[in-house]
């Protein structure tokens, strides 16, 4: 069984994001970049399926700038077998990414696509669902547990009001939620080994799909700031303040 794991290079989740003064976007200069945390969970799940003898090959794919090679190496160090970088300087929207991934999948023919439910930059939460739609494959989003039984994946999902379990026929697209697993740290020997694992680079043009943007970003601004209020001495002072504020 082959698993394809799309991964995205994003601002590290610990970095405080700064909006550019000219309102054209977020300042990415000299900022620490990492693999999208939800994608890390997807890589981890794929590696666990391989360690359990269910998966035989894991291919990590990234679509982005040349430096995205670094996160593909991270995926390889965690246990993926092969990397594919589709290099572009364009910021491609979820629909375009889904179309590119569909073209990659036509070549790679994986049994499962495991990917993060959203990237923490655009916060769209859309690419997995769009990919599944374009492929005509079943989807199971927001996974907190994945069990493979024959040609079906039983996926427990985090939904409004609790958990839902779906059975999806493979091939399928599964997107990960936070509680699926805790990703491992790659060990130094594995980081060294990852440098020798195969990593192909292609261009968007190689796939002949339409990735033209549909959205124009008019501006990016800072949200209204909330300033700190007052410290209260004790619980009764708190209650008195809340009564004055009219919320009790």
């Amino acid at each position, binding site marked *: 069984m082959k698993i394809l794991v799309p991964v995205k290079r994003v601002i590290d*989740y610990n970095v*405080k*994001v700064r*909006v550019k003064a000219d309102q054209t976007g*977020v300042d990415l200069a000299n900022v620490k970049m990492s693999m999208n945390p939800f994608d890390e969970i997807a890589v981890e799940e794929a590696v666990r399926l391989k360690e359990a003898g269910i998966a035989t090959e894991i291919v990590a794919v990234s679509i982005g700038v040349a430096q995205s090679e670094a996160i593909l190496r991270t995926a390889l160090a965690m246990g993926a077998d092969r990397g594919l970088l589709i290099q572009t300087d364009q910021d491609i*929207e*979820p*629909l375009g990414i889904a179309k590119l991934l569909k073209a990659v999948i036509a070549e790679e023919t994986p049994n499962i696509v495991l990917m993060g*439910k959203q990237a*923490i*930059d655009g*916060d*769209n*939460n*859309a690419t997995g*669902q*769009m990919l599944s739609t*374009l492929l005509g494959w*079943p989807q*199971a*989003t*927001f996974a907190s547990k994945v069990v493979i039984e024959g040609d*079906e994946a039983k996926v427990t999902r985090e*939904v*409004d*009001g*609790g*958990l*839902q*379990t*779906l*059975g999806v*026929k493979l091939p399928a697209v599964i997107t990960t*939620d*936070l*509680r699926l697993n805790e990703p491992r740290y790659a060990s130094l020997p594995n980081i060294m080994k990852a440098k020798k694992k195969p990593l192909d680079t292609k261009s968007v043009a190689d796939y002949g799909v339409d990735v033209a943007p*549909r*959205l124009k970003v*008019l*501006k*990016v*601004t*800072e*949200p209204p700031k*909330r*300033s*700190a*209020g*007052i*410290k209260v001495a*004790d*619980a*009764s002072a*708190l*209650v008195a*303040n*809340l009564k004055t*504020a009219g*919320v*009790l």
Partner: protein
Amino acid sequence: MAVLVIADHDGVTLRDSTLKVLTAAKALSADIDVLVYGAGSATVAAQAAKASGVRKVLTSESAGLNADIAEDVAALIAGLAAGYDAVAIPASASGKNFAPRVAALLDVSIISDVIEVIDAKTFVRPIYAGNALETVQTSDAKVVLTVRPTTFTAVAADGGSAAVEAASVPADFAGTRFVGEEKVTSDRPELGAAKVVVSGGRALGSADEFHAVIEPLADKLGAAVGASRAAVDAGYAPNDYQVGQTGKVVAPALYIAVGISGAIQHLAGMKDSKVIVAINKDPEAPIFQIADYGLVEDYKTAVPALMAALG
């Protein structure tokens, strides 16, 4: 220009979030229809028909729709989309599950988590966990949006008298099977709609302590219970309680954070609350930087004192 709003409901009651999405839809068009799909659609449709400004209510039920299978829901909506210029979907876990499919079926971009409608093609949405706001303009002929309900006021639940019609029923998608569900049942108000929310964090230390401290305070205030990601990850509270960037986004009149340090991703889910109270023994906790009222005290003494002061 007509808009199709997808109703959010629990099979019995139309959720308040639907009324808020209707407000967003009104900024797009005066012609608004509502689709109520899934079990109980007739009961809920009767409520949607009364909402202010609704032209027509459509209903549809099938095995797949009743289980909220995204493939079936999206097929239904895409099939109806010919008659509309925009589809507005509540940004719930359910809505986020099927909305991108609708967009993909129509070959248009999805515009997620809209917090402001500038005009029929231009929208504001949060990116980077709400640390930046993006204003985007679409060039697509049809617009598919998910709308973050907390930033819109609700339209009046009464006064309308829209007609209710049955819509088509999609064939069940063969590849996906509903296996089961585990819903958290509670008599407390729903987290997304509650006027008061009491949330607990990692400082609580155990599920027992979470129950013993957070829940009585919530019940005293008639509040919903929330939790930080750390508390959910540690198993102190169910996933459905999570407030934050990737959990629920809430904006109650009063938000009380107990033993929550205030990680960016938690703040993203509650910073639009009207009044924020933070109780934490660490005076340096980031939560104090956005709290209107901060009480620097161990929750173990602060919460019982607060219960006593509330009488």
